[in-house]
């Protein structure tokens, strides 16, 4: 297979001489398309990192919201209320900017020799040493930094929704179960870790499954943040290519977007299956409809 591909690349040296299948094979393996395929990796990578991070933020938010400590409780409430009340798109544009400028301001005051005012007229100006990333940095550092900022936005936004789901699930655990833990000498931490947390999952799972689907569907927002994701490349590659391009073709965007449709459908359909399985497994032996079903 590798050898075949290699041959194919060689024969792609002069696209204008190609026809039919060979043209397509070369077209679909040109440099831009490899970047397109890579961008699927970007999306999957974002999902793989954003989900656990959001869960982490979710736990932090839920625990803060449920905390006995007054200050902490308000922080949790404000976090959840703010994120849930503000449109996602606004937040996605706001958070990376906030983090980016925040970091640059801090660096400006700690790294720059002459700390002039940051706001000069309408411009946000920090010295070269404070730029994030440094203008001398490699291009991959720039894209990684952009990706990290986007990731932070996803984690914060989805963390707030997860916090609400987890908070609700923690509250759904019957008090009798926790009272029994106390009656058998467990302290607050033991009763939380041994009883409340494991019982919480079954109530949280449907909500978290929903969030995961929404997270998958929200990945095109990367495009909004200037990251070259699959939507960017589908538009870029699908658009009409005149004869000055190596592979001229008419407007094929509809096919590219159809490919994205298929990709997203497979992703959501597949994860639905996984979550259903998880639900069944967690429900074994439980006095719920799915639990009884599983026991039969």
């Amino acid at each position: 297979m590798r050898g075949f591909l290699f041959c194919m690349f060689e024969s792609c040296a002069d696209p204008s001489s190609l026809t039919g299948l060979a043209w397509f094979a070369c077209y679909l393996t040109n440099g831009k398309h490899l970047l397109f395929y890579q961008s699927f990796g970007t999306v999957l990578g974002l999902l793989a990192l954003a989900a656990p991070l959001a869960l982490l933020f979710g736990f932090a938010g839920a625990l803060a919201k449920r905390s006995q400590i007054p200050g902490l409780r308000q922080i949790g409430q404000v976090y959840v209320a703010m994120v849930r009340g503000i449109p996602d798109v606004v937040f996605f544009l706001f958070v990376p900017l906030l983090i980016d400028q925040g970091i640059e301001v801090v660096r400006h005051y700690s790294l720059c020799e002459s700390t002039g005012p940051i706001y000069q007229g309408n411009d946000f100006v920090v010295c070269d040493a404070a730029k994030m990333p440094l203008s001398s940095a490699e291009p991959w550092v720039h894209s990684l930094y952009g990706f990290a900022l986007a990731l932070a936005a996803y984690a914060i936004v989805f963390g707030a929704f997860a916090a609400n789901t987890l908070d609700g699930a923690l509250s759904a655990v019957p008090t009798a179960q926790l009272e029994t833990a106390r009656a058998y000498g467990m302290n607050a931490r033991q009763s939380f870790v041994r009883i409340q947390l494991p019982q919480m999952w079954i109530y949280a799972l449907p909500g978290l499954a929903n969030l995961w689907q929404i997270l998958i569907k929200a990945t095109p927002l990367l495009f909004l943040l200037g990251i070259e994701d699959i939507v960017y490349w589908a538009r870029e590659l699908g658009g009409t290519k005149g004869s000055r391009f190596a592979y001229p073709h008419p407007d094929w965007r509809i096919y590219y977007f159809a490919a994205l449709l298929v990709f997203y459908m497979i992703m959501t359909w597949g994860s639905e299956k996984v979550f259903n399985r998880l639900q069944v497994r967690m429900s074994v032996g439980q006095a719920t409809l799915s639990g009884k079903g599983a026991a039969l």
Partner: protein
Amino acid sequence: MTTPVLELNNIHKAYGDLEVLKGVSLKANKGDVIALIGSSGSGKSTLIRCANLLEQPQQGDILFQGEAIQFKGQGHDRQPSDAAQVRHLRTHLSMVFQQFNLWSHLSVLENVIEAPITVQGRPRDEAIAEAQALLDKVGIGDKGDRYPAELSGGQQQRAAIARGLAMQPTAMLFDEPTSALDPELEAEVVRVIQALAKEGTTMIIVTHDMKLARDVANHLIFLHQGVIEEQGPPADVLDHPKSERLQKFLSATKA
């Protein structure tokens, strides 16, 4: 004279303005089986829940093996002040609940070994061996790997009793152990409680079941509106009730 296992002195408990217990005292010596009877709202469940501090009494002392539980605060803010002491009390008094309250995410065996391992820090192997022996003893040795919801009520309650015994408690507290069960299933649980009584297990049992009270208890307490109306050996109290209220209560339960 030996120290009583558990002593409750002049216990007062109110929820808001509603006074549930108005100065109740009780003493359980080693090997005693005390039955608490009374109509709904008489405070008998509240009393047994005060014994292991699931409810905090606003007044009164709780002495476990002669040692008084320390409290801080007054009235509704009164709280036990020493967490270690509370844990000591709770690990030595095993509670069996009306609704069983087996932990639903754990198998029956895991339910029985949970507190011995987590709270008492006993080795897992030892806890499992003992749990299996206890499940055999209550007649559900073959149900260890089942989840609570897969068991009948009677089996669940027997599992809950095994869970209580696994703590190697000084005394067992039963809060209406048979009230949620059909007569048939009730009999299974009663047999287990009778067996425990024969072995000399110290028990305090809140019950509606006069037959259970008569058969297993050596001391019976009739609570009415938060005070002890009558008490004594079960046969005496049940056959020759002195107070009008107990007479009424007994004739109502017979019908």
